[in-house]
């Protein structure tokens, strides 16, 4: 029991590192991945910025990042990390490859969410002479918001998984703690505790994400529940 108490500071530090890595790469997912996802969608055939070449190139680049196993991406990007941060060790350094992975991952999630938007609605907006930027802001973003939030939740949870591999470059984090103490030092209790902590974290994130998605979708849902009533009146 005492030993477990002694673990608490380590656990707290590990959570801090995980939050830092996931926070930085999560921010990159939004700043870089979100626009890329919109561009991948908007350059598709039949959409307002249709551009075969740009779409092919974008898809190819995203696929490359997505197809490289994260451990390999971590190593491949070491020179870039060294160039940007002048170091390759620590949670900040691990955030560089994590950001690449998260941006590519979230871009796909965004694209998929946008493909769920009724094409007829986009066509209608186009027919009324709506500018592409207004379509993005007022039609795509709003109609796809629940899907975007769900996609972001999935991205963040995947990032927690990826960040466990960041231990390889001394990134630290909860997953790293589980491997170093629990696996390498045969402390099964430590491993179980960290795993339980991770399960709780992921559950919380998923519930939070679902809640936001449902809330953003609420208007439409409420409408559907009431529609039967209104139909009778008509």
């Amino acid at each position: 029991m005492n030993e477990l108490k002694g673990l608490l500071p380590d656990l707290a530090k590990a959570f801090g590192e995980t939050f830092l890595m996931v926070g930085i790469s999560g921010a990159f997912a939004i700043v870089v991945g979100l626009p890329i996802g919109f561009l991948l969608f908007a350059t598709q055939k039949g959409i307002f910025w249709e551009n075969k070449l740009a779409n092919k190139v974008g898809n190819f680049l995203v696929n490359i990042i997505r197809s490289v196993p994260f451990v390999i991406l971590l190593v491949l990007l070491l020179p870039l990390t060294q160039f940007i941060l002048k170091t390759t060790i620590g949670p900040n350094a691990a955030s560089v490859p994590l950001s690449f992975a998260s941006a590519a991952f979230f871009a796909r999630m965004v694209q998929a969410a946008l493909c769920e938007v009724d094409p007829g609605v986009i066509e209608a907006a186009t027919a009324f002479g709506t500018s592409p930027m207004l379509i993005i802001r007022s039609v795509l973003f709003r109609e796809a918001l629940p899907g975007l939030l769900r996609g972001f939740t999935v991205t963040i949870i995947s990032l927690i998984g990826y960040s466990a591999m960041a231990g390889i470059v001394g990134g630290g984090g909860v997953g790293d703690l589980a491997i170093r103490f629990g696996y390498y030092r045969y402390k099964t209790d430590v491993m179980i505790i960290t795993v339980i902590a991770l399960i709780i974290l992921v559950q919380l994130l998923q519930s939070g994400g679902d809640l936001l998605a449902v809330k953003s979708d609420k208007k439409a849902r409420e409408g559907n529940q009431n529609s039967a009533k209104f139909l009778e009146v008509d």
Partner: protein
Amino acid sequence: MRNVSLTIEKGEIFGIVGSSGAGKSTLLRTINLLERPTQGQVLLEGRDITGLANAELRDQRHKIGMIFQHFNLMHTYTVWENITFALRAAKAPSSVIRQRVPEILELVGLSDKADAYTSQLSGGQKQRVGIARALANQPELLLCDEPTSALDLETSASILELLKAIHRKLGITIVIISHEMAVIKTICDRVAVMDKGEIVELGSVYEVFARPRHQFTKQLVERTFNFELPARALDITRGKILKILFLEENAEKPLLNEMALWYGVSVNILHGKIEYVAERPIGLLVVVIDGEDGALVDAINFLRSRAGNVEVLR
């Protein structure tokens, strides 16, 4: 589509009819350049708009309203917001928006539904929102893409009535595509019939209904009149079976009575109906006449000279 050339007059209600895949939807979308023609031009009031792009094209589209088979409303928006959206697309100032939206809601009869979400509306109400949105920017041209195909008969009729009323009130030019001749018959002045990417017939709705020339048009009209004679009726009758088309004032004259009296033939009606196309009557009757051979020939000739069209079925 190939060799499609047509002129739509300002202020008319023009119909384009054809089976699915005939190219009518493409033709309609060419008018606001949602589809760009590989060859040819789109002229609007004499101005070539085919080459327009970006901001210029958007400005042009503000003056062309469009409604859709599946309404294409934004489901996270209220009725008010859906209409506002079209106005914002045209960069209307908020003072104009506040004044225009209630006005247009009243025109389509949805003043009490401004704050409803579209999922709370029935199909007919959704199409009314679609119409309101399309008219928000006071367009000169309204394109209708199968506007009643997703609606039941009664609601269809009320939407067509609304379009007619709007046409009377605003004098707006309306182009409507449909696979149903019944829709065209109710609302249009002129119609183009499309088959396999070509316009096979073009004329006033009454002319096309009364004297369809192309095989495809004949089928369409036939289906609209819903004219099918049971085989049993043909078996048990004696004499000549005639299908008679009465046009214009002939539809309202007692021609059969005169024929029976003058030529001494018996007349028995098997099937009949009078349709009003563009508020002009077209009568269609299937009758059996019996009598002496000479009298029969004379009677048929008499009908041929008076009625629009007589076809001897047997």
